[in-house]
């Protein structure tokens, strides 16, 4: 039985060999690829794996789920923390109970995780900033739309973006607006930013919902191509935007492969066959996908 079986009480939790992935949320398309990667790997490895997260980004709700998951004594846990510090306590408890825990998608410093598999968000941010600089020709006004001002991973990306832009003195960051992880708000904010800055050169969307909103705003303002748009993650709308000429670059993590690999690592730890040392870091890397490389990327991503 897969993780998405809604039926019955004889669910996977009763069998001892269940692996649990704790994403930040469920309602972001980014996690769809991640879940597929997990399901794919689980089928290949012949194990059961579950994907449990709060409806939307929420640190306390995630910890509550983590709490409850610990009670079921799973075979291994991969956590993508909404807030790293908030899960340290539970990770220690898991370790005490002999459950291997790895940080996945986002690191948990100063904790007892076995290691981290994922990308470096700050580096990804730098890469996005550079991509933007390049597409606007190293000068002009740019704006940022960010899912939340208080999400750790998004703030890291923002930090990277700012770091990159700092080395381009002719680029000016004129607005930073919040979308609350909502495409509708992202589009609303982008539309308004475009009104307030008729000469805007480019946008960066930091969260998963932001680039789709930006692309929509550009499209409705007929500014696709004139105003550049960079964002994170190759989600369907990003691809659509790119195909429509409204998106110039996507900084992509590889959630499918990253998650599949994470499950492999957990299974190895569970079976004491892991060759990874303590505090390992597996950087799955990010790639900058442009309209030219999109087709190629989509072929290899899964």
């Amino acid at each position, binding site marked *: 039985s897969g993780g998405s079986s809604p039926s019955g009480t004889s669910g996977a939790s009763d069998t001892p060999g269940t692996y649990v992935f704790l994403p930040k949320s469920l309602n972001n*398309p980014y996690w769809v690829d991640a879940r597929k990667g997990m399901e794919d790997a689980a089928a290949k490895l012949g194990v059961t794996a579950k994907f449990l997260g709060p409806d939307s980004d929420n640190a306390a709700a995630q910890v509550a789920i983590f709490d409850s998951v610990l009670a079921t004594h799973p075979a291994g846990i991969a956590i993508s923390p909404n807030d790293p510090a908030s899960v340290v306590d539970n990770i220690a408890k898991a370790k005490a109970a002999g459950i291997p825990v790895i940080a996945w998608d986002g690191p948990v410093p100063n904790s007892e995780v076995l290691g981290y598999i994922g990308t470096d968000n700050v580096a990804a941010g730098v890469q996005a900033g550079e991509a933007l600089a390049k597409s606007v020709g190293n000068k002009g006004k740019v704006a940022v739309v960010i899912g939340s001002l208080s999400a750790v991973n998004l703030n890291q990306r923002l930090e990277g973006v700012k770091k990159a832009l700092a080395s381009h003195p002719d680029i000016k960051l004129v607005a930073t607006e919040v979308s609350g992880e909502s495409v509708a708000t992202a589009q609303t904010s982008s539309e308004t930013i475009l009104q307030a800055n008729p000469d805007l050169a480019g946008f960066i969307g930091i969260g998963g919902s932001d680039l789709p909103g930006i692309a929509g705003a550009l499209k409705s303002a007929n500014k696709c191509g004139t105003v550049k748009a960079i964002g994170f993650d190759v989600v369907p709308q990003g691809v659509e935007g790119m195909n429509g000429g409204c998106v110039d670059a996507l900084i992509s993590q590889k959630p499918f492969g990253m998650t599949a690999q994470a499950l492999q690592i957990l299974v190895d730890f569970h079976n004491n066959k892991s060759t990874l040392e303590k505090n390992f870091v597996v950087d799955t890397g990010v790639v900058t996908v442009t309209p030219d490389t999109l087709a190629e990327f989509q072929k290899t991503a899964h």
Partner: protein
Amino acid sequence: MTINGETVKRITQTTLDGGPALPAAARTSLSEKVRHRLLKIITARESTLGAVVILLVLYLSWASPYFFTAGNLTVVGRQIALALLISVGMTFVILIGGIDLSVGSVVALVSVLSGEAMVNAGLPPVVAVILALAAGALVGLVNGSINAFAGIPSFVVTLGMLAVARGLSLGISGGSTISGFPPGFLYIGQGAFLGIPVPVWIAAVVAIVAHFVLTRTTFGRHIYFVGSNEEAAKLSGIRVRRVKISVFVVASTLAAVSGILETARLSVGQPAAGNGYELLAIGAAVIGGTSLFGGVGGILGTALGTSLLLLIQNALILLGISAYWQQAFSGVIIVGAVALNMWRRQRN
């Protein structure tokens, strides 16, 4: 009519001795009526709020060169339109003393369903839209029936529905978003007619019809009656349950309309849509003077409340207020505007 006419006559006859003559009464009533109307507009509970909104618009036009431009007005207009659709439905529910927390989830459900229908099942847009609207109406029917027949407070029923509808949209979509809508469909969200965005037309028509229904039809007046005194409504022979159910259907259906327009506007069907819209809609209605205890309020106030909320959001971005402080500002402005309105009303 004939029965009523008869009754009235019968009774007036009994007092013909002391009562005033009929034509005199009619005469007074006409000139009095005009005066009454005028006075009503000036002292209407919404007037100060209206003034606040107008002042805000004037201020923004002065403070930002970008505010009063066709482009920005289009942008704000479309935002207000989408929110207004939901607020109007919410006003109906609040007027009977109820609340509908599930509107945001209905937006998500409709967003996902219309995506599934149009993109994945390939149904023609018209059919898909009708299906999605029907789903919205069904949610309202369930809400209203449970509330009216089982007597469960609408807060609980719709809190449950908030979870159920959101859960359904998450479950159906598996968390992923759906894009690739046909252009004909996208037009209703992104297109314009006579230079005015389609959603604005739709919201305007809906708001006017809703205002008309509430003020001029028996259904509308019964809504107020039920909200003002449910027991009295029942004893007066109003079919209270029917009114309740209808009102929830109206709210959900309008949320569905908004959800469809939002989907078309964003070109994406998504289970995360509509998050928190319930609070926005309730806030717009209450800021507009609709009482959470029922029986008091109306569409005019709700339209002003919605405009105020969205204009503030627009303003804070145009004026370049730091995103970190925008929320704090908007909270203060909202309370300030309502305080002003209250203060004016009390002085009258």
